């Protein structure tokens, strides 16, 4: 009986990478589903010039806001099913009972979510920036602001996703929970790009976003883990 207890303990990095790789495999096996947020993002942004008219000056002044709002909504859309599949097939129960820190497992799942939902938006954004007549100098700032912003949205959104785990049709509730928390990200993200468009310094806003990533990285996994425990303990 005591012999098993002498087995070496599993390192946190092994737990993280195992869950990360597992979820990436699942993501790639249903990659078309993963493209939905990106498709939504591109569609919404490209509808604006059609609705507002092709005035280049107007487009470049609303461009940062349009891209950022669309990115925020696309991220929100993708959050709904973050833990749903694992909850449905019972894997989440097994993660809770794995004896490993649930926050590390949750962090790995959020990282996969960001790679499949957030990163494509970041990579696509320069193209949409050009599309909305943003000056070339604004494009690097757009990419960096979205890079940091989508990370925060993934981390904070995952708390909401974990809290609405057992709620049927929890999408609206999730939006209500996550939107107020993501407003600062939207404000600073869009303001950073706007500043460069107006030929001002954007370092302050980007630093704030960077601080947000650090804060969310430190605190969100604990919150997600707690919410997942509650969700799993209430059964189906």
């Amino acid at each position, binding site marked *: 009986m005591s012999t098993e207890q002498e087995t070496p303990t*599993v390192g946190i990095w092994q737990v993280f990478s195992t869950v990360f790789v597992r979820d990436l495999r699942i993501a790639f096996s249903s990659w078309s589903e993963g493209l939905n947020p990106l498709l939504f993002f591109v569609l919404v942004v490209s509808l604006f010039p059609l609705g507002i008219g092709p005035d280049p000056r107007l487009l470049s002044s609303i461009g940062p806001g349009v891209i950022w709002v669309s990115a925020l909504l696309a991220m929100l859309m993708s959050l709904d099913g973050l833990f749903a599949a694992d909850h449905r097939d019972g894997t989440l129960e097994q993660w809770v009972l794995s004896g490993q820190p649930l926050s590390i497992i949750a962090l790995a799942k959020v990282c996969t979510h960001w790679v499949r939902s957030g990163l494509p938006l970041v990579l696509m954004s320069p193209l949409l920036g050009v599309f909305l007549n943003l000056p070339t100098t604004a494009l690097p700032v757009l990419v960096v602001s979205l890079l940091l912003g989508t990370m925060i949205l993934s981390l904070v959104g995952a708390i909401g996703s974990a809290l609405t785990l057992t709620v049927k049709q929890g999408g609206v509730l999730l939006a209500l929970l996550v939107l107020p928390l993501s407003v600062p990200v939207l404000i600073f993200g869009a303001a950073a790009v706007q500043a460069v468009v107006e030929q001002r310094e954007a370092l302050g806003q980007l630093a704030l976003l960077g601080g947000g990533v650090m804060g969310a990285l430190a605190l969100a996994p604990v919150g997600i883990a707690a919410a997942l425990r509650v969700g799993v303990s209430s059964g189906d």
Partner: protein
Amino acid sequence: MTSVDAVLSAIDLTSWRGETCVLNEVSLSLSAGQILQVVGPNGSGKTTLLRTLAGLALPDDGQVMWQGNNIEHDRSTFQSQLLYLGHKPGVSGALTPRENLLAFLHVRQASPDLTQLDDALDALALGERKELPCRWLSAGQQRRVALARLVLEPVNLWILDEPLNALDVDGIAWVVDRIEEHAERGGMVLFTTHQPMPLVRRQAQQVLLSEVEMSS
């Protein structure tokens, strides 16, 4: 009801679901090498009891003790010695049986034995299908994938909720053999089933959850 050498013991577990009392002061104890079957009609709280014992659900009253400590105080020590298989098999349809099992093994063990993994899949007649996504497998085969963890994870305590569901005769025989083997090595098994279970060598003890306990 708790005996001196009990490794796992539950003391006066009480659990409410809204106005309904699902568990009413249930006590049980399990010592090394013991097999315990939780018996009771549908809705008598078997699943709630097993989930509470595993630490998945918190009891409204009472406590679960593992080696003398409340499991809520040292969750990871208890859970690293526990294998819980619930109604839902914990098998992702997008992954192959091998990938599913590897993920669990790598999360729970520092250096899992991979040859053992292929042997286990062969023993469960999944050898030819180990590279197929699990969504293409039948319910019984998915259950077999989950049950392969019985031989792959060296833990003391098994809590199995309806492990025989969807299994064929061979599958049932395999599970029964593993349970008896585990008990002979000094492991503990706690399970529920509605199927007749031919435990030959070692008679399982039973805990009866009566219907009376359901009504408040």
